[in-house]
Every structure is written in structure tokens, then in C-alpha cells.
């Protein structure tokens, strides 16, 4: 089957894009005074590397995506970083970012296919479900002898959902070695540190015990490190086992007063805080 190509940018260009996308995130969340800036900011390097370095896709967006790499966001609340990345990658007009969470928008609080937003293949938000859908998509590729890959991102708090572990069993049992899952391992969730709310204990051993290949990326907010991480994950695919990467990030990365705290999981900045954030994030192209 014919494969699409990645929209590859240099690491330097990706750094510029990351700054702009961080501006987009804080402006979107500020603009509607709701949304989830913390996890969004923490995953910017992942999204930029994925969409501007690794993911093989074509536009206009095609729902089935046969012959393309697919991406599923299981932790749907970090929609701002996904929407901003999709817009900057040309899936839809960047001006539409201004409609985030507002009435009659395609940019719903949590991602959905319902309004036909290009780039989204399933609704997510109720946690723990996206990984199962990614498994189904990976299985479909196996059935169709389509050698492209399926990527999925989950939160770490999300791993407390039982369905994740049903999917983990399934992917290993069905040898879904075309599936690359990344865990946003920021150690924070709404009520506080994951270790205090419901500890995941030895997470790497858990995945290994479920029959997965486990990779680590201790620097999930380094553009170069995440690029290397995705290269390693792709190299690890096709070896009979599904691949999971534990990507250590800082919630709120890039904005000093948000960084590393669960308090910015789902809180919007006020006017002064927005300015303070934007002062740290120099515009690199143009704001929407």
C-alpha cells in the first residue's frame, strides 16, 4: 500500500513552532477562561515532533487513513495542544483556534468527530477509551496488510482506568507491533501528584508484564530527545510486541509559574497571567 510522507521540519524550525504553539495554547485557554493548559504545554515537544517530523499523513484529511500513520489522543482534555498543532500543520485555518470551547465551534472542549474537525478520528475525553480505539485501528492495518503505524498518547493519571489494561492485554495478545503508545509521564493529576492520588508504582514493569516493549524518554520537553524517542520507538516497532514510551514531561512546561504543578491542570490564566506567560513565549510566526 502507498504511504504518505511526513511534513518534516528541522529541529530548529520545530523549536520555533513549539514557541508559537505554546502561545496558541495559553491564548486559547485564556480566551474562553476554561480548558487544560498544564498537560497541553507539557506535550508540545511530542506533538511538534510527531506532526512535523514523523507522522506520515496526507491532506485533505481522510477518516479511514489507509496507507497513513494514524494518531489517537486518549487523554482528550489536552485538546489545546492538538488543535494548535493541527492548525499549524494545515489541517484547518489557524483563525479557527479563536473559537475553542465557544458556541457553534468545531473545536469542542474535548475532541470529537461530531462537528467534522479534520484530524480527529474518534471522540475522547472520558478517559481510558482512546487506547482501545487505537488497538482497533492497529488491528485493521494488520488485517489490510497496511504497514503504516498507529500512535496514541495517554496521560499517566489516565492509566488508573481499568480499560487501559484491557487494551494492554489485547495489544500484546494480538501482536500489535504497529502500535506506539506514549504515556505523558508528568506525575500530576487533578487532585495532586499521581503518587498521592493513586500510585502507579513500577510502571515500566507493569507494561513489561503485560507483554510490551518499554522505552524511556527522561527529557520529554527536549525537542531533540523526543525526536530521538520517536526514532527509537519506530525502530522498535515490527518486532511482534506493541511499544510503549514513558515520556517524562513537566506539566505546564514553558511557562515558569505553571510548570510542574497540578494546579494548572484545568485552570485558565487571567489577563495578567496571560501577559506574564506570553512575555516568556516569543511569537515566531503570527498569532491567530
Amino acid at each position, binding site marked *: 500500500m502507498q504511504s504518505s510522507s511526513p511534513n518534516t521540519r528541522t529541529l530548529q524550525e520545530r523549536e520555533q513552532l513549539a514557541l508559537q504553539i505554546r502561545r496558541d495554547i495559553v491564548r486559547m485557554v485564556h480566551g474562553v477562561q476554561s480548558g487544560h493548559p498544564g498537560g497541553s504545554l507539557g506535550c508540545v515537544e511530542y506533538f511538534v515532533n510527531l506532526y512535523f517530523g514523523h507522522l506520515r499523513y496526507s491532506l485533505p484529511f481522510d*477518516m*479511514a*487513513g*489507509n496507507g497513513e500513520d494514524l494518531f*489517537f489522543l486518549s487523554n482528550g482534555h489536552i485538546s489545546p495542544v492538538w488543535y494548535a498543532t493541527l492548525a499549524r500543520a494545515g489541517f484547518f485555518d489557524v483563525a479557527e483556534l479563536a473559537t475553542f470551547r465557544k458556541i457553534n465551534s468545531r473545536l469542542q472542549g474535548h475532541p*470529537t*468527530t*461530531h462537528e467534522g474537525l479534520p484530524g480527529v*478520528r*474518534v*471522540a*475522547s*475525553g*472520558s478517559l*481510558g*477509551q*482512546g*487506547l*482501545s*480505539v*487505537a*488497538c*482497533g*485501528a*492497529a*488491528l*485493521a*492495518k494488520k*488485517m*489490510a496488510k497496511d504497514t503504516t503505524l498507529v500512535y496514541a498518547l495517554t496521560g499517566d493519571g489516565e492509566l488508573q482506568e*481499568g*480499560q487501559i489494561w*484491557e*487494551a494492554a*492485554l*489485547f495489544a500484546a*495478545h*494480538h501482536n500489535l507491533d504497529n502500535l506506539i503508545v506514549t504515556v505523558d509521564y508528568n506525575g500530576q493529576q487533578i487532585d495532586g501528584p499521581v503518587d498521592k492520588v493513586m500510585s502507579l508504582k513500577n510502571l515500566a514493569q507493569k507494561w513489561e508484564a503485560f507483554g510490551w516493549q518499554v522505552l524511556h524518554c527522561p527529557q520529554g520537553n527536549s525537542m531533540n530527545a523526543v525526536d530521538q524517542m520517536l526514532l527509537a520507538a519506530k525502530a522498535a516497532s515490527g518486532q511482534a510486541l506493541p511499544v510503549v514510551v514513558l515520556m517524562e514531561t513537566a506539566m505546564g512546561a514553558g511557562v515558569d509559574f505553571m510548570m510542574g504543578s497540578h494546579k494548572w491542570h484545568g485552570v485558565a490564566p487571567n489577563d495578567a497571567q496571560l501577559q506574564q506567560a506570553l512575555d516568556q513565549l516569543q511569537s515566531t510566526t503570527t498569532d491567530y
Partner: protein
Amino acid sequence: MNSIKGKFPFTDKKDTRSGFGAAMTALGAANPKVVALCADLTGSLKLNDFEKQYPERFVQCGIAEANMMGVAAGLATAGYIPYATTFANFATGRVYDQIRQSIAYSDKNVKICASHAGLTLGEDGATHQILEDLGLMRMLPGMTVINTCDYNQTYAATLALAEHHGPAYLRFGRPVLPVFYPKDRPFVIGKADVLHEGVDVSLFCTGHMVWECILAAELLEDAGISAEVINLHTIKPLDTKTIAASLNKTGCAVVAEEHQVNGGLCDSIAHYVAKHRPTPLEYVAVQDSFGESGTPDQLMEKYGLKAANVVTAAHQVLARKAS
């Protein structure tokens, strides 16, 4: 008088779930996009032949129904037509949020196929006898909800779903019942089957209660009452045109379903009738209670879901019409 007697001859008795299994084997040959998913109940869902003949399109999910619904959504995204199968309890209540978000809201072409629905599951008892599934499924926007009455109709509905785009719930069961539908009767989603015309009272029924309503119509005929029997195999979208036409003629109705009186066909019809054509209605359904262990026959009798209960309800509604 147009007699119902002898109108529905049958030579065979079979379970509705076997109609599903046979249709799946046929679909395996006819449509390369059809995939069967199962959660450790291959034999109960009668999918052994499909598994044997199309192993590459048979997906064993283990006892993990939530994941199965998500996997089905993923397969549908790629253009496959997944039939996700298990017992009705685990196909609806257990995985409601997965169906709601990953399938219904996401408009995935997934067929949720559920056996062992209702009291006729029998001895396993109330943990497995879901009587709320039709209500749960019909509340979801865009979900098609079907409850078939015999082997042949289940076979036809299973085939029809492959040609229909969109999320759907197909409910069938375990009891062995007369096969009274002609094998070649086409299944039209959303179009009720008028099985027998009558003028005094309408019997609106679905699933296993269709046969009980045919028996009831025979008993009513003996009492000089002409009953119209309509099989509302599709709960959603509801064929309100056929319902209205029947009520215009009879002026009263009994609604019969193997389900809670809340949420399913009774509520669907009451909702329509109250607004568009206020008419006396009586209900033959489970009255807001759980089931229990017993043979299917004993349970249908204890919970008031037999032909005799339909006859009693018909007399009650006829009296209300007259008053």
C-alpha cells in the same frame, strides 16, 4: 372476519441467536469488510462457524467488553464493519460510556449484537437478565435499536445491518421459539411489520413478545374481538406512521415487550401517542423490578409476559376506550 388462526404456521422451533450466527456465516462470505468480535462467548453467540471459516476476521477480545467496544470503533474507523457481540447485559449497561463516546458520539459504523436479553435467559438470574438495554440504547442520539422476534427475522436483520451505515444495537435471545417468519421476508429497518389487521385493539409488540401477541390475538378472536398485531422490531427510529394508522382504526392499544415498562417500547409509544394522538394504552412489560432464576416459561408467567396477560390488558384497554 379476517381470521388470524392458521396464518402463522411453523414446522420448526429455534432460538433467535442461532439466526444471528447463521447470518454472520453468510455475511462472512458475502462481505469481506464484516468482522466479528467476541468476548469469550463464541459458542453462546453461535459464532463457531464464522470463527472456523473466517479466522482472519474473527477477533477474540477475552472478558473485556469495554475494550471490545473501543476496538470495534477503531476497526470501523478504517472502514471495516465490526459486529461486537456478547450478552445483552455486558453489551449495554457494562459499557455504556464506551458506546456513548467511542461509538455513538463518534458516529462509528459498529453493530452491537446482544444475546441472552431479558427474562428468557432463565436460570442464570437477574445479574444477567438485563431488562433496561433497549432504554439505554434508545436514549443515545443516532443509535438504531432493533429487537427481533424469531430465527428468520434475526437472520434478516443481521444481514440488513451490514448495508446500513451507523451505530446500531441488535437484541436477540436464548429461548427456542416457533419460526413463523417467512425466510425470504425482507427486513426493513424502521418499518414496522403489520402481521395481522384488526379493528378493535392494536397489539404493538417487539422481540419474543410478538409470538405471545399472535397467541393473544387468537384468544381475543375467540371472544369476538378483532386485534391488529404489529411487530415493532425497530424501537428506534420508531415507525410512528404505522402506529398512528393503526390507532386511527382501533382507538386503543396494548404494548408488549420483554423489558422494563420504563425506557423501552412502552415509553417510546406513550411518548408519541401522548403528544400526537392521545389514546388509551395498556402495557405488558416488567413492572420496575429485577428478574430471578427459573425456566424461561416460569419467569414469563410470573412476571406477566404471556399471551393471557396480553388478553387481560386488551380487555382493560377496550373498557377504557368504551368509557
